[in-house]
């Protein structure tokens, strides 16, 4: 009992900041809503009733949340070890595209095809992420920049592939699409009225598995220490390159799974730009940042953020508020969370200022604090 209590206490302490940021974010949104001559209370009411409070909309929200949760975990997997992977989108595209092709073209019986294609997709995602590890080890290239740029590479290559070799000529005529994946690999649905599938359960399993990996495994420990202080890890005998290879490969594989859940669970085929326009990866990144990389936090924050987006569509239909309001609120929350760093910095700076009323002479400037 006590253990649960202290755990809840700690979880509360971690989540306090995001909750405050969320309230502030909603207040910022309210200002804009008032400025557009609408009643913020009514708008928020509509927004939340059309995202969380009715079963239909809730399942809509959860469908959208599925890839976002997994993207958030993919981000956290790399960031916690100190490797800033912002290429989840690219890894997601590569992995899910590979899985889709495998599902369409490999002649295997249903259940086996499901497993084989998912594994192939995750392998593709992790190989794509590993390119960055190799570049970093061989040439010392920046992980941030490489992962970011490879997003575009992945999206354009997929664009080409879906425009020419793998285009379905009998597609919908509006966008470029591949063929539909066989029914035998499509995820089981949890709802009769919309697309909610067992993808959300897979997302929950990913969250729990990640949580377990992070706390209970040697790899989780070593990568966490590498993230905290790479020199400390090296000194203790952790082989940094191995950690980087494993971490980025894992992150890429999880990212691939996010895309696979979206395709196998609700869209059933790859559509050109489907992941970039929905910005799953970036919303997942925001969720990871807001919840301080805590997996359980990522789970709920992702659902909340996708609720905002689903609710945003609803208010666009019923009022003069455009869907971009959801983005405003979401970005404000992220800003307020990152503001915590700013606040800490500011209070430190003020304290220093108080101690040194006048600027000390330059040559003596290196005053140490006690």
């Amino acid at each position: 009992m006590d253990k649960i209590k202290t755990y809840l206490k700690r979880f509360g302490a971690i989540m306090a900041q995001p909750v405050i940021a969320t309230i502030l974010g909603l207040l910022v949104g309210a200002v804009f809503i008032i400025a557009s001559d609408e009643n913020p209370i009514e708008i928020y009411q509509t927004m939340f009733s059309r995202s969380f409070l009715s079963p239909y909309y809730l399942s809509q929200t959860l469908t959208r949340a599925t890839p976002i949760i997994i993207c958030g975990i993919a981000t956290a997997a790399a960031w916690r070890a100190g490797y800033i992977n912002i290429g989840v989108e690219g890894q997601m595209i590569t992995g899910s595209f590979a899985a889709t092709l495998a599902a369409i073209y490999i002649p295997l019986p249903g259940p086996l095809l499901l497993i084989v294609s998912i594994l192939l997709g995750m392998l593709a995602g992790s190989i794509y992420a590993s390119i960055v590890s190799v570049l970093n080890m061989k040439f010392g290239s920046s992980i941030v920049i490489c992962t970011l740029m490879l997003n575009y590479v992945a999206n354009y290559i997929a664009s080409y592939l879906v425009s020419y070799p793998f285009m379905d000529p009998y597609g919908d005529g509006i966008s470029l699409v591949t063929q539909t994946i066989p029914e035998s690999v499509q995820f089981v649905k949890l709802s009769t009225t919309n697309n909610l599938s067992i993808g959300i359960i897979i997302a929950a399993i990913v969250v729990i598995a990640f949580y377990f990996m992070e706390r209970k495994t040697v790899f989780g420990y070593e990568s966490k220490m590498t993230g905290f202080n790479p020199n400390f890890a090296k000194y203790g005998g952790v082989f940094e390159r191995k950690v980087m290879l494993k971490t980025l490969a894992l992150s890429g594989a999880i990212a691939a799974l996010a895309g696979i859940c979206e395709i196998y669970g609700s869209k059933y085929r790859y559509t050109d730009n489907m992941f970039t326009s929905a910005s799953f990866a970036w919303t997942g990144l925001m969720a990871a940042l807001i919840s301080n990389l805590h997996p359980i936090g990522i789970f709920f924050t992702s659902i909340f953020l996708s609720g905002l987006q689903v609710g945003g569509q609803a208010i666009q239909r019923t009022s003069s508020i455009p869907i971009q309001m959801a983005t405003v609120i979401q970005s404000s929350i992220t800003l307020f969370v990152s503001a915590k760093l700013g606040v800490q910095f500011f209070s430190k700076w003020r304290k220093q200022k108080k101690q040194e009323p006048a600027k000390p002479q330059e040559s003596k400037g290196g005053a140490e604090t006690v």
Partner: protein
Amino acid sequence: MFLELKNITKTFGKTVANDNISFGLNKGEILALIGENGAGKSTISKILYGLNKPDSGEIFLDGKKLKIHSVLDAIDHGIGMVQQHFMLFESYTVAENIVYGKEPKKNGFFDRKRAAEIVRELGDEYGLHIDPDLKVEDCSVGMRQRIEILKVLYQNADIIIFDEPTAVLVPQEIEELLKTIKDLAKRGKSIIIITHKLQEVMDVADRTVVLRQGKFVGERLISETDIKELSYLMVGRGIPPREVEKKEPGKLVLDVEDLRYKHEGVSILNGLSINVHEGEIVGIAGVSGNGQTELIQCLTGLLKPDSGKVELCGEDISGKSVREIRDLGCAHIPEDRYEFGCARKADLEETSIMGYEHLPEFSSKGLLNEKHNQEFALNLLDKYSVKYDHMGEPAGALSGGNIQKLIVAREIEHNSKFLIAAEPTRGVDIGAQEFIHDRLMDKRNRGDGVLLISSELSEVMSLSDRIYVIYDGQIRGEFTRAEADTNKVGFLMMGGQNGQD
């Protein structure tokens, strides 16, 4: 009283750095401000020099109340400070550094010739000779300190504060500095010297003020006290002298021959050879920056040496990984506890198991054995009396001495045949220092080999069975405990060659 501090109180957050401290300074007097780390010596001197502002209390100079808001105010009132870490422009000349901030001018331009003259005149007056046209980057540590002193004199200081002035010096330089300080006092300068080295206090000061945990605990005339009493005042209890158990060294544990390492074309280790036996503490004395860091890193696998033999317990370890070397029996208390010894955000359990996590009791099949690991961490914390709040506390929240104790605990409890202890007591208070020294002795008495690398000569001298002196990446001399003497070792530390004085 020339200078008087009355009821000075200064707090940083919850910590009270100075608690209602009062003392005075006479003209021409040398006052030693002594206390352990964190006793509040530095804070009070920074208040005097305008770097910190007191929460309450008053300062009087010649009976007049002083308001010191900044360093410039302090300098205006004739208060100067020679800081522990020198603040000099490396690529400028000695003269330029000394006159900086108050340059002699001719037709509105900097008068370089006059600056050099000023430095020569000052040097002649106070017996602090130095070539004014030398670049600071070419100056030794002792010379740099002389530049700082000249700078303070140039600013016409009547009160000079020395903050741990001997921490960076070798014995011969220390002797010279103490002479300079006495000389300055004779010429009417009033001096405050902050230190925790009691022998120096006895050698140079007229009077001493003792601080403990931010409080004033006493004041003694040097002629009426001794080291024993002062250390009792400082620590709050007596410290018995160390007794060294006789021990015959056993088999060879570490054997290094002709170790060489170059970094970006600069030779750092130039054919260094050392060895350590079972049941022996071998000290490496030397001014920091003479290859100690690289030596440690080559021995532990963090760096790959260019050539040379490194054998641990008879096995060649050059080219082996950190983990392989650790598993062969090499534990390592790192030089810098925050850079290598821990991660500030890691909790105490995570800090405790580093380097063990892959061992069978600590994990199996990639899964951590939580129950065992927690017990293990608790045992370390308990056995080494580390003060902490709770296990989930981040290492960065512990005080320096306590985190150091935990690191020492972790490395010693490896029960390895060989331990590298680099600066094991840097920046920790006397209590923790004694404790750590005792643990190193225990390790030796159990029959393990210890390589002690420290820039604190007294530490090396008191613990080591054998001492090597390192200079410029080479061993310049080797002494047994009986042969070693501060002067001989100090001479070699400065680059002197054996056989010539």
